[in-house]
């Protein structure tokens, strides 16, 4: 069996005295789309941010394609912190798309997409622009390269953010509620781009409230509740009846709001 893209081993995370992740075990198979679901405050966004090492876990190990990110095991349950350059090296395998897009406002769409190619990888401007334009075309924005983020709609900004992550050809792409800040009529264009990415066989880990999307695109569903991984399996198994009572309750909340239609 091949190494998982992401392996999470007994991860705990506390903010002060509040424990938000309580011993998560999860592995994300290569080339799959994994959706993290759960009610607000269940810890799913925190888990994703721990995978990206934007949050430091309190204990446990996270491996990206076999390499520990942030902390490595040091025997007897202890762990050592890895160096900043080690963290950057492993993190280079990951791309991240944020709920708030986080585009750099002083750069154009193309500037955002090519920034790291030039600054971090030392690529020539012309070569970087070529890649940048290709990635913008991939998300359907080839005519928006010279627009500033403030001149783009939310959906367009999020697609630029996806192109920015793709430009560095990561192995794994993480999405933190990518449509949660968008007007309902703009979520479709972002979900479509994500659906296309899933079809290319890229490894995606998506925190989302779009249950219909998760059920149709996800190959694996991880349902978190109160900081614990309650359910973990293929959508047919998770969403098929009989359902776990907590999931049932969660779905009802969403169906009541008419937010999703299950497959």
């Amino acid at each position, binding site marked *: 069996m091949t190494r998982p893209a992401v392996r999470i081993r007994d991860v705990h995370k506390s903010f002060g005295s509040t424990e938000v992740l309580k011993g998560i075990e999860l592995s994300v198979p290569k080339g799959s789309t994994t959706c993290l679901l759960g009610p607000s405050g269940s810890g799913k966004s925190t888990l994703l941010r721990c995978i*990206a090492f*934007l949050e430091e876990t309190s204990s446990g190990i996270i491996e990206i394609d076999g390499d520990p990110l942030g902390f490595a095991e040091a025997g007897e349950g202890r762990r050592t912190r890895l160096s*900043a350059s080690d963290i*950057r090296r492993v*993190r*280079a395998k*990951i*791309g*991240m798309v*944020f709920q*708030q897009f*986080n*585009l*750099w*406002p*002083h*750069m*154009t769409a193309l*500037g955002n997409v090519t*920034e*790291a190619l030039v*600054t*971090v990888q030392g690529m020539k401007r012309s070569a970087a622009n070529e890649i940048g334009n290709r990635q913008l075309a991939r998300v359907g924005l080839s005519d928006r390269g010279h627009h*500033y983020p*403030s001149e783009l709609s939310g959906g367009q900004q999020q697609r630029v*953010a996806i192109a*920015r*992550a793709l430009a*560095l050809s990561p192995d794994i792409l993480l999405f933190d509620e990518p449509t949660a800040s968008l007007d309902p009529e703009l979520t479709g264009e972002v979900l479509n781009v994500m659906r296309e990415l899933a079809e290319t066989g890229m490894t995606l880990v998506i925190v989302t409230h779009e249950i219909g999307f998760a059920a149709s695109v996800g190959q694996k569903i991880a349902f978190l509740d109160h900081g614990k991984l309650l359910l973990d399996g293929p959508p047919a198994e998770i969403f098929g009846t009989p359902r776990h009572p907590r999931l049932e309750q969660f779905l009802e909340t969403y169906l009541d709001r008419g937010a999703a239609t299950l497959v």
Partner: protein
Amino acid sequence: MSTRLFELMLWAAGKTVLLSAISIAIGLAIGLLVCAAKLSPKKLLSIPATVYVSLFRGVPLLVQLLLIYNLLPALGILVPSEVAAIAGLALCTAAYQAENLRGGFNSVPRGLIEAADMVGMSPWQQLRRIRAPIAFRLTLPALVNEMILILKASSLISVVGVIELTRMAQNLSASTFRPLLFYSVAGGIYLAICWLVAGGGSLAERLMRTGSSR
């Protein structure tokens, strides 16, 4: 007012602008260093920076100028009064500019830095490409404000013997017995310069909102 007297006023106005501009530029450089020190997690840097800011913000500029003007000769350092004036203005504005810059850096949204982390930028690359440009844009209105304040505060340097716009107006009104005329002209010139600086500031802000960043 004869042409000759008007020329003297303009010459003095030029000196006001020149001394203010040099002070603001030096003050910005010192302000950047003080800001960096204040943002540093190392107490050895942040505490002296905090002391610096509270000292230079807490003592009136007029007192600072008189202190520097008298302190340097007492230390055996003989410099032209212009140098003492620039030192006083620059050290004072540095304290304010450091605080403005600190506000700017602290206002850069965290998510933008996280995005830079995720594309592998080193802390130095983040500072150069993301944090400093955004902080500068956020700080620009405060910087323009500070320029205007220093331009007007530069009238105080007449007390250390520098002949600038205010002192020239004073001299000419004393020798011609026409204080209303010369102070009105001086006021008008200050107003015009500040108006130009403010206009330049708005233009820069507009350009940065829409213009190229590269």
